[in-house]
Structures are given as C-alpha cells and as structure tokens.
C-alpha cells in the first residue's frame, strides 16, 4: 500500500455516519454538528434578507 497520507478517500457521508452511530458519546457531537449547521443556515437567511 502507498505511504501517502490520506491516500484513501474516507467519504464524507461515511465520516458523518461514524459520528451518528457512536451512541451516547456521539449525541453531543451530532447535536453540535447540526446546531452549527442550523446557525449557519440562519446566518445565510439573514444575509439573504438584507
């Protein structure tokens, strides 16, 4: 196998899934992930309004 760093595409969906299936420990991460996205979403809405 190649010695390059990150020679394998981990896949974005596959990475997100790992946060979701982690049980209780994952809940906080997932909550934060989607909360941040939600805030981003609001900001975009705000920008759009202006």
């Amino acid at each position, binding site marked *: *196998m190649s*010695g390059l*760093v*990150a*020679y*394998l*595409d*981990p*896949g*974005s*969906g*596959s*990475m*997100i*899934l*790992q*946060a*979701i*299936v*982690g*049980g209780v*420990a*994952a809940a*906080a*991460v*997932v909550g*934060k*992930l989607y909360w*941040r*996205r939600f805030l981003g979403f609001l900001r975009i809405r705000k920008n759009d309004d202006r």
Partner: protein
Amino acid sequence: MIATERVADPSALPAELAESRVAAVLRHERVPFVSYPYEWTFGMLRDAALLELDLLLDALDEGLVLKDASPYNVQWRGTRPVFVDVGSFERLREGEPWAGYRQFCTLVLYPLLLQAYKGVPFQPWLRGSLEGIQPAEMRRLMGFRDRFRRGVLTNVILHARLEDRYADRDARRELRQAGFHAELIRANARKLRKLVRGLRWDAGRTAWSGYGEANPYDEADAAAKEEFVRSAAGARRSRLLWDLGCNDGRYTRIAAAEADYAVAVDADAGVVEALYRALRDEGAGTILPLVGDVADPSPGLGWRGEERRPLADRGRPDSVLCLALVHHVALSANVPLRELLDWLAGLDTALVIEFPTRDDPMVKRLLDRKGPGANPDYETETFERALGERWRIERREPLPSGTRILYRALPPS
C-alpha cells in the same frame, strides 16, 4: 502481525534500496502463499475482519489508527490470519474519524452481510470488483425485512443515504469543529466487532458437503487411496503441495504431513469452510484452504492485471494432488483431457492423479445427463496415453471398486 524487524545496516541491502532516501528499512517474514479475499470462505473473511478490528482497537490505545481496512492486508499462515501491512498504522489526528470505515464496509462488512443475511456467496462480488460492494448497491440488495437485521440500518441504509447527501461536502472540518473524538472510533469499532462476531453462515448441504460419507465408492477404495497418497508423499518431501479438488481435506492432511506447506483448493465453498473450521480448531499451521475452480481460476486483476495475480504466479507447487477431479473438469466443464494435462504439465511437478473410468457411477451420472455419445475422448486409454506423453508414470493402481485408477507421475526430466 507479520514478524518485522528493522534492518540495522542498510549498506547490506540491494543497491536500489540502500541508495534511496528512506527513513528506515524493515524486513518482513515471508508469507508461505499469497491468497485473496475472493478465494476465502465466509469464516476466513470473518476472522480477517475481526483481526483488523482488534488491531484498530489496539492501535487506538497507542494513539495510532489504521488508515485503511483492506482485507488484502491480511494473509494466512495456515488457518491463522496475519496482518501484513505495517504501513497502515499512522498517528491518530485529533478530531478525525476512521478513514478506513468506508473501505471496511465495501470490502469486508457488506460481503459478510450478503452471505450471512441473504445466503449469497460473496466471492464472485469481490472478484468482480476490487472496490467491493458500494453502499448504494448494498442498499438495493437489502429487502424490507433486511432493514431490521443487525447492522443494516446504520451501516447500509443510513450510510448510503449520507453518502448521497454529503457527496460534495468536506465533513472532516465540520466534524472536528463539532468535537469528534477518538472515543467515537473506539465505540464504532467495538460495535462492528460485535456485529461481525454475531454473523453466521450455515453452509448447509452444498454440492459436496458430506460427499465423503455419501460417495458411491466404498471404504476399501478410500483406504487404498489413503495408502497410495501416503506412499507417494513419503517418497519425496515437497516444499509446496497443491491439492486441487480437496473436498473434506482427508487426503490433503495425509500428503501435507510430508510437505512444508499445502494449499487445499475446492470449488465448493461449503466443504472448504468446513475444512477451514476444522483446521482452525486444531490450530493447524501448514494447510491453507481456498475456494477455487480449476476450470475458472482466479485471473490477474487490477492495474494491468498485475495487482492480484493468478494462482500459479504466486508460487509454483512441486507436488500436486488431483483426486476425484478429472471427471468434473472434463465432463462438467468440458475441458478436453489433453488440455487439462497440458496445464498440469506446465506446472512441472510431481503428480498424483485419479482417473474415474466410464464405468464409475459418478461418471455415468455426469454422462447420462448429457445424452449418448457425449465426451468421446473420455477414455482410460486416451487418458493414459496423454499422461505418459507428458510424465514418467511411476505407479498405476486400480482401486478395489475397479472403476477408478490412481497414478503417480513424475516430470520426465
């Protein structure tokens, strides 16, 4: 893990290695015979998966991670899986998920689920694509009821959906900012280990499982065959033995006692699985059971067809057993006898070969299905002449039933 040592004095190395700028040079022990996941049984892929997950968990304890999860990184010493890719370990970067998870799904977990839940052999899928089964494909293979089976909802359905939705996003940064940590990798690896441990495949009664008891020839034939194989093997110790059409491994075991290493091949994954489990439970270290068909052997695959090699390119045997094989290749696969013998002669090895005559019940059954006049070249005289043209026949012995003949043949030189 494969035994590995650091070469202290690089000047003793071949010039091209010693001159290149490398941080360190490692030397590995050699794997006796290279094999690929599409030649393994369910139990072998499952044990290889457990080895990878155990190594991942151990690596996490040391602040390391496996950067991939290719089952091609696992080889075998007999029935013991050996992880061969030392370069797969890298330092764990805080906040990053396991990069190998997707590969673990496509090349290891999905093939196992396919066989355990649907009863579909995974070998043709892995041989069909070196990338394995993609999440979206696997989702389509799962029926409504399969969604409720262990591991499917998350590792297949949700995985496929997220992959679809996040195709153009960089999740790495988002996850790090959200506080992803190594404990989540650990939790996921533990769950995967539990899932894989719980997977079962019941081989059932496949074509030849139980062939050993139900075969039409009697115990006298089997005893004579054992004696023949034992004496042939005892005449000269071999380095690498191939048993083609090994069935339950009864004769492999006898011949392997006089060989450094033996590769036992059969087209029926059910009998190979039974052999693997038996050998593994005994802790046997010199017989490697593989699924393979002489009439449809592993091809060269990948880049230039050279990443994965055909069987014969991975180590030539110096001794070959072909028991209860010739009639299947000649009559079921319609390979002319001379073609089969030409191929075997190309291996340039000592040979023990069994020829079931046209009077043999099994041969009759195969011929009856085809109608009168089928395979006219399938005659004892034709076979013997062709064998004699390519080998020096050392011993010829009809079995007590009178419908099978054993030959021990040596290369003419």
